[in-house]
């Protein structure tokens, strides 16, 4: 079976105001199979956020090819990319990124709305998802009436509501205390183990990365380690 993600020779450089392009990724080769739980680590400036954005189809690579779920997404247009983000990928961000003026239920229902699901059905499914995440009673609340951990769980519910093949979590515990962080990581672990959802996690904290099974370490735009979490050197 083909891997869910296959990156071949991915490069990325940013055009700046000056004449020089700033290179960030120097040719990344990476394959991630379905059902894996991968942590991507690296210091700031290592290119891990850029890689994350490319994986999430939020940014396009300058060179190389990216196959997601059997499709070459580096060749897709804006419209198809939006569809990929909508149906294949679920995002969890460091700052939760919930929309402030919407109830948690409407936040969770938003990806469904963009998928063309009717309002009533979208709400029903959103409530179901919230209940599964243990937040059913907070459906009508606004995000800022919830604690940080609760908000991140709402964000996870939102990421999952469209049954994506891949969940991308970008520093999901960056704004949380240790105990809450562990709770959130428990949620990811359970998701991966019970539902078989592929989870790719970007973090700079080794404690958090330890929840994953596989570790990919970046430095200066190159993969310098790719192997099991247990065997990795600090």
């Amino acid at each position, binding site marked *: 079976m083909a891997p869910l993600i296959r990156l071949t020779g991915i490069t990325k450089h940013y055009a700046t105001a000056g004449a020089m392009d700033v290179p960030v990724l120097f040719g990344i080769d990476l394959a991630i199979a379905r059902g894996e739980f991968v942590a991507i680590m690296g210091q700031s400036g290592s290119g891990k956020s850029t890689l994350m954005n490319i994986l999430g189809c939020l940014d396009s690579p300058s060179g190389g090819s990216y196959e997601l779920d059997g499709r070459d997404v580096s060749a897709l247009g804006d419209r198809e990319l*939006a569809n990929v*983000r909508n149906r294949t990928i679920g995002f969890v961000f460091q700052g939760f990124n919930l929309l402030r*003026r919407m109830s948690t239920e409407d936040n969770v229902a938003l990806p469904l709305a963009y998928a063309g699901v*009717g309002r009533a059905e979208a709400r029903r499914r959103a409530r179901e998802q919230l209940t599964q995440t243990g937040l059913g009673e907070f459906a009508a609340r606004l995000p800022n009436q919830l604690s940080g951990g609760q908000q991140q769980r709402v964000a996870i519910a939102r990421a999952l509501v469209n049954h994506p093949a891949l969940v991308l979590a970008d520093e999901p515990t960056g704004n949380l205390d240790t105990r809450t962080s562990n709770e959130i990581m428990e949620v990811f672990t359970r998701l991966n183990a019970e539902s078989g959802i592929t989870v790719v996690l970007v973090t700079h904290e080794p404690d958090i990365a330890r929840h994953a099974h596989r570790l990919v370490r970046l430095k200066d735009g190159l993969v310098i380690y790719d192997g099991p979490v247990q065997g990795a050197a600090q």
Partner: protein
Amino acid sequence: MSYVQVLLEALRAMAMNRLRTALTMLGMIIGVGAVVLMMAVGQGAQTKVNQSIATMGSNLFIVLSGAVTSGGVRFGTGSAQTLTVDDATALAGLSTVKGTAPLISGGFQLAFGNANWGTLVWGTTPDYFTLRAWDTDEGELFGDTDLRSASRVAVIGQTVAENLFPDENPVGKTLRIRNSPFTIIGVLARKGQNLDGRDQDDTVFVPISTARQQLIRTPFPGSVRMIMAQAISEQALAEAEAEMTQLLRVRHRIREGQDDDFNLRNLSAVAETAAIAARAMSLMLGAIASVSLLVGGIGIMNIMLVSVTERTREIGIRMALGARRRDILLQFLTEALVICLVGGSVGLAIGVGGAWIAAELANMTVEVTLASAGVAFGFSAAIGVFFGFYPARKAAGLKPVEALRYE
């Protein structure tokens, strides 16, 4: 995302920033309100002018006597009294002239019982009523027999009837004009105001022969104050004017190079000028009001641009969740459109209300037409799309990764 949902989102976004939404709307409200009100005022003025023109009679000329100069004092138009009944008859003989009526006039106090009323009394021929297309509401007009026999009969206007005979039918009653008794044989139909704003119904008509005998002393027998003439058609107006001028110059023995001793006025030209002026005023009012609509539209664009910048991160989140560029474009466009349409509706209501107040309190003639309401509403929608499009496109053109990174 369905349109209903887009609309709900737009309403939610507007509700988040109530004061800002209200202020933005105010621009539209004032703009649309001003357009509706100004168009109503302009339309009203046009209608009033057109009504006055319709009551005047068509293709009419007025010939007045010229000015007399005595010892260096110029007495003004009509002071010369050079026109005669014979002039009127001669003018009526021209091929381009359908008919003429000589007129003499004087101000008199009228009395009936204990009531009295001052007005202008006109002596004329029965042709005058044909020229003006003026008939009676009650009773009848005087005829040629009355003219020949100088009967003491009078036809009165509605205003005179109302003032002297508030509760009874004037026909058959005897009216005293400066102590001379006249039998009222008819009450004229209502004409309303003329172009100068004078009440055309405040008047009394008697046969010109009777007027000369009983009421109005003229400088010499047969002299008249003015002659009203009607051309046979609109096309013949210019020709009729030339022929009448020529004929009168010959009859009055005016040599080549000498000024006319009479004054010929084309009333249709006057009417047309008034109509053009009214139309121009209507257009100008509309144009001035449109400026405020434009300013309102720019206000909307301004606010939408601020809103796009403020909500950059939200746009990024929506894109990450699967919003296409079209969804984002539609969302911001809808917001602009809703602001415009709601503002437009309120403005329309205020404009109509303002027109009503102007009509009731200031006693102005205003006319709110369906077309002006439609134009205002269509305009506000067009402004929403026009001024909302640029900010919406700006929002939709954001790169997801950059929008998400925006603090």
